[in-house]
Structures are given as structure tokens and as C-alpha cells.
């Protein structure tokens, strides 16, 4: 029988450069973004790297050296990348992808630097997403380094001291009351808010803060803008003694300030003598986080990919310079790369980094596509009188069957509202998936990276700052909503039928890819997706051994692992899709074309490695959930034969006694095991899928062997392009 595994033909010649990434992440024709990348890179690998190398992270305080980075960001266009042209920005249209690329470049060297630059965007985001026209114009202008020599800096303050807001963002203790409300004049508000872990707070000039009403003349919660010059207390608090991201400033601030009601983000109406904010704090936060979380996921992705070059160099050079290790000897030329485990583990780090980057950038691009559609949707709904809130929700809900029908028919609907529904349902999954998997699983893989560098890995001198990158990943997994929050969100959004209809299509699409590119193991991925879908449908209807529903919000033991499994699938799928883009466009680029065959083989092998691991993870998770909530039968229950029973049956069915297993003897003894083996009645489909899936993993270890040859052969630069 012929096999689909290819013989080895070509290996990777050089590390994938910008031209390769531009194709994979789809910005070959976006010169604005390519320039942004280069510009941010010069700051990251210059001043940022020098600060880290000189030990600037060894203090919790916000020092002048750390503050100098803000000016560097301004000068290099990092700060203004998030601004629209009228406020001194230079990138047209939505900026999710641009900010993702910027954070990726900074985090390649230091996550804290990325956070410092992003926190300013986070502070402005509530105003950008939900602010009034006046608020937007006012603050965007003041924050623009193009328009001001000393631009304002902001902080975003949601989290509060224990026992208040953390993961549960509803438990606000910060309060807003009416300080003064003169007839015919704008009400003055008194804001009391204590923050915990507020980024940028060491220097912020203004804060966007979440508060609840402490006054019956104000309805619900809202976000307000606080400025350092407002009358009252604007206490920055002391520096948080965080062990990570030390190039960003974090403190626990205290605010007791009087501000005009015009500082309520998004404005307000007055109804029956009550101030009714146009947006409550949850609505603002939802609009903000769903975009900014993707960027955080990309930070960890960058760190994984940044670990590849220093690890290759360390492994290859490990024994050079020794008296007995002569040039030309295997020990000299290959160093630790002689050892298979070193190659295989590095490949897993690399494949995870690629899959994480593919997923994160896909999510960022998705939001760029969604943003204008969202504006169109808002305008259309307003024109229909469906406004916002429940009526808007109901109006959109009605369109869901049309959306599903369009997806099933592989048709792009003309109605922008339906297009929005489709994209939105995917974005609601991709955002938490990128945040959760990239940072959570990414942190685990970064630990592998550290360990691959031996003792050096755990020192401050380690090239590529690997230990900092590993520990920093834990913060990336935590802030802007820790893993539990992402899993909780996924457990709802991934059951949206509009999303699931797309998911179903993707299975078929992967099979087509597998037909043309079998070595990607796209087929294994498709089977794993099928198994996930089967398991979800099963769990949505099944009950546990005690008759309790399995798929429900309080049952995090069911919903959360399913969310994790989905993330594995989405990231591996995205890596396959990006590799297909490379297959289609790589040869058109002269510099990519030169080493195209080796490059393509290597990425194909990375796909296979990642798909194989994914299939393994998904199979394990699904099996645990499908069977793990049933009670194992014991020797007293049904499912086992009694010896007497068998003896009497023997006369009717000759031979049964010798064939039967799981027999309870007359004296009560039984075979040495927990009970009669579990029967699979009703689970035949799952069983078939499971064994099919195991078979689909065929070849993924061969891919690892092949890709390992690339690690040995690939040419790397003489030194890292940033100091250590």
C-alpha cells in the first residue's frame, strides 16, 4: 500500500523572516503595517532590550529609565498607531491588527514594555468604543504625541481591593454619587474608587474607572473619566510588588474626586430626575476587552517564537570551545542537537508559537473586519427603531436562522446584519480562545523553553530573556480576565448555533485541504473537530450518574475542558490555513521563493505536529467527559454474570460458560479488577470516532523526525539582534 508520508526532500534554509510572516499573517500588501513593525522593532530590540539587559526590571518602582520608554514609543509612532488620522494617527481604518502586531514586536523582547504601551490604548478604549463625540475628540487629541509634545497618558481602573471586583466584574464597590445638582446646570458627581493593580498608574494623567451608583438619582453603573487635576484626592498609591512585567507601572490607587457628569463615558439622559448613563460599565468593558484581549494573546505567541533562535544557537554551540571538541566533529557541529529529545521539544515550542500567532492574528483581522460592520449594524438597527439593549438583541436573534441557512449553503449573505451575526459569533469565540490558549498553554511551553536552555535558562543572562518571558506569561494569562473568565465566556459563545454551523463547514474544508496536502494532518484535525462536536451535542443532552444535567454553567468541570479542547482545535486549524496561504503565495515572492520547498515542508510538518498533539488532547478530553460522569459498575451490580446463571444457560447456549468473562463466582470471588468492564451501548459512534482519531494521528511523529532535520540544518545568525 502506498503511504502519504513524503520522503525527505528539502529542509529549512534560514529562519522564517518578515516576508514569510507577512504572507502567513496576511499583510504583504499593508505597507503601513510593515513599517509599524519595523519601527516598533527598533524600539524593542534597542532601548527596551538595553533596559532589560541592564537590570531595569529589578525594581518595582517606576524609574526615569522606564519612563524614557514612553518617549521612545511616541517618537517611533507606537503611541499614535491606535489613533485615527484626525488625531495624528497614520493607519487608516480599524486598528486591531496594527495593535496586535505592535504588541507582538514589543513582547518579542519584553512583555512589560508591551503592556506599558498597550495600557494607554486600554485607557482610551472605553472612550474610543463608547465615548461621546466630544469625549472622543477631547481625549484623543490630548493623548496624541503628534499633536502634543507632552501627550496625556491614561490608566484603566476596574479591579478593586479584595473582596471586590476581580474575575467577577459585577461586584463593584467604587461608587458615584451626586455632589451637587443646580437647577438648569450640569450635575456634579462625587466619585469614590479604589483600584488594585492598575497599570500605568505611576504616571497616568487620567483614569477611566468603573463605578456603581451610590445614589438613587443615578441609575446602575457606568464608567467615568477622572483627571489628576480634578478637585479631591488623586492618590496613585504605592507600587505593586509584582514579580513580572516590571517595565510597566502598576499601583493600587485611591480616588475621591468631584467631576462633572459629562465625564460619564458615552453620556447620559435624565429621566424623571434620575441620571441614566447610556452605557453601564459592563457594556463598556465588554466592547473594550473583546478587542484588547486578542493582543495579550499575541504577546505570549511572540515570546514562544522569540525563543527559537536562542535555543537553536545554545544547542548547536553547546560544546564548542572545549579542548577535545574539534571543528568538524559531530559534537562540535551539532552540539546538543545530536539528541532527539532536544529537537522534538523545541519543535513543540515552535509549533505552539506558530499556532498561537496564527490564531491571534486571525482574531485581530476578524475584529478589523467586524468593526465597520458593527457600525453599519448599529446604524441599521437604529433606523429600524430597534436601538440597543433587548430590542436590538431580539431583532438580531430573529435573523439567526437566516445566518445558519447562509452558512450551510456556503453563501455570503447580502444583508449586513446577517453578515455581522456570522462574523460576530466567530469573533466571540476567537477572542477568548486566543487569550486563553496562547497565554495558558503558551506559559507551559515557555517553561519547556527555559528548561531546554539548562541552568543558563534560569539566569538573568540567558539570551532572549527566557525566564522573564516564562514568568511574564503568567500575568498575560491573568490580567484582562484570567483563564476562568475566558473559559466561562467560551462555554457560552461556543454553543451559539451560528458559530457551530461555521464549525461544521470547517470540518469539510479541512478534509479538502487534507486531500491536497495530506502531510499537514488536516484530516486528523477534521476528525478531532468531529469528535468535539459529537461530544458537545452529547453533553448538552446527557446526564451524570446522579441524573444531573452535564452541560450547564455551574458545571465548569464539563464546560471548561470543552473550551480548552476547542482552543487546541482552532489554533491548529489556523496554522493549517496560514500554511495554505504560504503554499499559494510563497512562490510569488522572490526572497521566499528561493527556499520555498524547504520552508513549505517545514511548515507542513509543524502543522502535522500540532494537529497530532491537538488530536491527542481532544481525544483525551472528550473521552474523560463522555465516560467520566458515569459510575463504574461494581461486582454487585448489573453487567456481570453469576456462575450459577451461566451453568443453567449452558444447556441452552452451549459454550457460553467458557466464553463469558466478568463472572462472579458462587463464593463471591471475581477477577482482579474494579468491576465488570464498561459496556459501550449508546456510545458506538463515539467509539468509532475515537479509534478513527487515534488512527488519524498516523505520521505526526514522522513529521517531527523530518522537521528535526531542519532544525539541524537551518542557518542562523551569528548572534541575537538584541542584547542579553
Amino acid at each position: 500500500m502506498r503511504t502519504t508520508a513524503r520522503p525527505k526532500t528539502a529542509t529549512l534554509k534560514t529562519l522564517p523572516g518578515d516576508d514569510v510572516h507577512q504572507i502567513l499573517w496576511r499583510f504583504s500588501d499593508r505597507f503601513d503595517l510593515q513599517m509599524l513593525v519595523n519601527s516598533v522593532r527598533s524600539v524593542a530590540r534597542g532601548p527596551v532590550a538595553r533596559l532589560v539587559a541592564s537590570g531595569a526590571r529589578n525594581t518595582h518602582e517606576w524609574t526615569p529609565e522606564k519612563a524614557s520608554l514612553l518617549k521612545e514609543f511616541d517618537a517611533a509612532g507606537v503611541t499614535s498607531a491606535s489613533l485615527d488620522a484626525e488625531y495624528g494617527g497614520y493607519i487608516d481604518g480599524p486598528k486591531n491588527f496594527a495593535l496586535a502586531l505592535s504588541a507582538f514586536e514589543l513582547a518579542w523582547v519584553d512583555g512589560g514594555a508591551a503592556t506599558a504601551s498597550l495600557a494607554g490604548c486600554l485607557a482610551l478604549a472605553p472612550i474610543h468604543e463608547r465615548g461621546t463625540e466630544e469625549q472622543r475628540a477631547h481625549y484623543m487629541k490630548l493623548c496624541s504625541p503628534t499633536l502634543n509634545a507632552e501627550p496625556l497618558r491614561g490608566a484603566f481602573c476596574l479591579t478593586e481591593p479584595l473582596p471586590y471586583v476581580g474575575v467577577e466584574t459585577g461586584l463593584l464597590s467604587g461608587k458615584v454619587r451626586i455632589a451637587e445638582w443646580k437647577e438648569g446646570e450640569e450635575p456634579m458627581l462625587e466619585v469614590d474608587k479604589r483600584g488594585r493593580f492598575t497599570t500605568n498608574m505611576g504616571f497616568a494623567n487620567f483614569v477611566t474607572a468603573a463605578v456603581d451608583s451610590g445614589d438613587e438619582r443615578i441609575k446602575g453603573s457606568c464608567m467615568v473619566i477622572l483627571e489628576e487635576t480634578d478637585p479631591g484626592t488623586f492618590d496613585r498609591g504605592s507600587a505593586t510588588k509584582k514579580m513580572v512585567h516590571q517595565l510597566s507601572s502598576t499601583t493600587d490607587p485611591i480616588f475621591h474626586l468631584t467631576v462633572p457628569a459629562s465625564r460619564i463615558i458615552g453620556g447620559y439622559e435624565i429621566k424623571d430626575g434620575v441620571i441614566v448613563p447610556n452605557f453601564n460599565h459592563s457594556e463598556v468593558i465588554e466592547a473594550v476587552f473583546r478587542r484588547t484581549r486578542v493582543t495579550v494573546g499575541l504577546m505570549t505567541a511572540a515570546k514562544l517564537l522569540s525563543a527559537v533562535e536562542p535555543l537553536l544557537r545554545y544547542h548547536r554551540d553547546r560544546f564548542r570551545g572545549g579542548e577535545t571538541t574539534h571543528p568538524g566533529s559531530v559534537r562540535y557541529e551539532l552540539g546538543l542537537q545530536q539528541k532527539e529529545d532536544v529537537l522534538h521539544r523545541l519543535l513543540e515550542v515552535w509549533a505552539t508559537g506558530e499556532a498561537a500567532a496564527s490564531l491571534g492574528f486571525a482574531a485581530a483581522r476578524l475584529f478589523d473586519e467586524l468593526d465597520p460592520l458593527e457600525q453599519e449594524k448599529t446604524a441599521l438597527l437604529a433606523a429600524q427603531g430597534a436601538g440597543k439593549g433587548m430590542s436590538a438583541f431580539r431583532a438580531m436573534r430573529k435573523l439567526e436562522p437566516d445566518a445558519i441557512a447562509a452558512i450551510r449553503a456556503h453563501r455570503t449573505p447580502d444583508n449586513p446584519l446577517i453578515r455581522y451575526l456570522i462574523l460576530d459569533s466567530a469573533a466571540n469565540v476567537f477572542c477568548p480562545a486566543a487569550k486563553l490558549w496562547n497565554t495558558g498553554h503558551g506559559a507551559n511551553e515557555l517553561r519547556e523553553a527555559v528548561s531546554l536552555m539548562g541552568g543558563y535558562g534560569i539566569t538573568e543572562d540567558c539570551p532572549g530573556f527566557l525566564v522573564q518571558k516564562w514568568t511574564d506569561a503568567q500575568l498575560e494569562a491573568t490580567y484582562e480576565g484570567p483563564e476562568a473568565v475566558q473559559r466561562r465566556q467560551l462555554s457560552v459563545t461556543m454553543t451559539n448555533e451560528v458559530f457551530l454551523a461555521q464549525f461544521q463547514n470547517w470540518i469539510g474544508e479541512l478534509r479538502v485541504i487534507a486531500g491536497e496536502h495530506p502531510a499537514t494532518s488536516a484530516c486528523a484535525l477534521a476528525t478531532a473537530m468531529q469528535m468535539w462536536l459529537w461530544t458537545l451535542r452529547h453533553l448538552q443532552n446527557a446526564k451524570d450518574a446522579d441524573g444531573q444535567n452535564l452541560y450547564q454553567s455551574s458545571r465548569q468541570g464539563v464546560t471548561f475542558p470543552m473550551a480548552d479542547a476547542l482552543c487546541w482545535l482552532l489554533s491548529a486549524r489556523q496554522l493549517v490555513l496560514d500554511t495554505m496561504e504560504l503554499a499559494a503565495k510563497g512562490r510569488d515572492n522572490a526572497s521566499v521563493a528561493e527556499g520555498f520547498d524547504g520552508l513549505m515542508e517545514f511548515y507542513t510538518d509543524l502543522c502535522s505536529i500540532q494537529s497530532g498533539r491537538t488530536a491527542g488532547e481532544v481525544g483525551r478530553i472528550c473521552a474523560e467527559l463522555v465516560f467520566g460522569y458515569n459510575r463504574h459498575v461494581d461486582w454487585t451490580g448489573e453487567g456481570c454474570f453469576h456462575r450459577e446463571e451461566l451453568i443453567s444457560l449452558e444447556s441452552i447456549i452451549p459454550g457460553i460458560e467458557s466464553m463469558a468473562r466478568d463472572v462472579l463466582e458462587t463464593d463471591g470471588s471475581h477477577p482482579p479488577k474494579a468491576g465488570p468492564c464498561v459496556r459501550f451501548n449508546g456510545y458506538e459512534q463515539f467509539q468509532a470516532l475515537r479509534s478513527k482519531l487515534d488512527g488519524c494521528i498516523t505520521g505526526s511523529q514522522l513529521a517531527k523526525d523530518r522537521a528535526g532535520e531542519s532544525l539541524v540544518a537551518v542557518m542562523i545568525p551569528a548572534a541575537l539582534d538584541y542584547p542579553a
Partner: protein
Amino acid sequence: MSYHIAVCAGIVPDPLQTLEPVSGPQGPALKNEMMLPAVLDPWAAHALYEASHLAKNVPGSKVYLVSLAPKAKLQQVLMTMAQKVAFELVALDGPSSGFTESADVASALAAAIEAIPGLDRSQLLLFGGWESAARAAGTTLAMVGERLGITEQFQGVDALKVGADGSLEILERVEGGKHQVSVCAGAPAVLGWATGSLPEPPNSPQTGMQNMRTVMPALQKAKPAQVGAHAFLSVSLPKQQRTTRIVKDVPAAEVAREIAAWIRGS
């Protein structure tokens, strides 16, 4: 008085890359050169920064960046260089490696400069590196100047001052760390720059976006340049080789001492 400054600049592999000579189908080459990240030739880059500085101080002046390089690689390099200073690009598609013949490169560059629409040859300052980081022969720019009929030529330039009467005072490097001061009446002149005195300008994506309006059409229009294949009798690596070593917290004097000892010892 204003200048038309044509800066000739090739591209070279990023200096951190491992450069390994190999024999390719077209003769000697660097291993995987097309795939390695490239930078603007550092000597010529200094010339570009000086040109931009001069153009800013002399109103009405214009800077042209004239480059013969593989188009796809040049485009990547320009994503950074276009952010640093304002210029108009004149691009020629062809190899930029150290193994091409400088006379061929010079005639291609001279022809491209002659063809620049609206170029005032009487106001032309021809800038470039006094040598390239690829070939290091220091011959190209002089030949471009000769082909354009410019006989006022200066090499190893570190400073240029424009006098009130339009004269050019030029500092050229000579032996022993000294400079020779020359004065010429004015343009046209050839200046092959050493390092000059200006730092590398920071990136500005805004400047980059403005330059891109002319850069992309120029790249699309770039014609293949005729640079001949030459037979090399032999090519060899320098005898003295030293592997890159990254050191931290070592004073400059110590580094210098170590390098001197290494030179003496070999």
C-alpha cells in the same frame, strides 16, 4: 541655490547574519543570500542621512535614492529606510551582491540618474558610500561620477559645509586619523561618504507612509539592470577569522586590549 542630491545605495545582508561564500550557478555567491534579512549598505546609509540633512537646510533641494538591488529585498529594506528620511526612489532590479562588477553597476546607476525627469545636472550632488559593505572596493561612485562628467570628487567624506557663496567645504579622511580640508566652487560634485557625523534618524511611520506614495510605483517600474556575470579565478575567505562573542559588562578598553592581542597573536 538648491541641490538635487542623488544618493547611490545598495543593500547588503544584515551584518549579524552568518555569511558563507558558496559557488552558485552564476558564480560565487553568499549562501541563502536572497533569504537573509538585508539592510541598506551602512556607508551609503550615512550618505543618505547627510543628504537629507543638507536638503532640509537648503530650501528647494531634493533627495533621490538610487538603488540597484533585487526588487523584493529592496522593498523590505525600504519598509525601514523610508521611515527615516524623505526621498524619491529610483530603483533598478538586479543583484546587489559583492560579486558583481562595479563598472557595470556604475554604468547602470549613471544611466538611471541621467534619466531622472527634471534633474538639474548643474545642481547635482552625487552622494554614496566611499565603499560598499558588500564589495568594499571603493570604485563604484567614482565611476558613476566620471560617467556623468563630474570631476570634482571627494572620498571618505566626514563633513560638508555650504558657504554663503555656495562653495562646498569638505572634510575627507586621510591617513593617521586626520582629515583633509578642500573647498570647491559648488555643484556638481561627487561625495563618497565615510560615516559623516549624523546619528541614524529614528523611525517615523508617518514619514514612511509619505515616501511610500512614490516608493511603490518606483519599485513596480524598476527595470532589470545589466550587470554582467564575471569569471572569478579564485575566491577565498579571509585567513583571520574570529567567531562572534557576546560580552556583557566589559569596559571598552578591555575589549580593545583583547582585540589588539588577537591581532598581534595571529
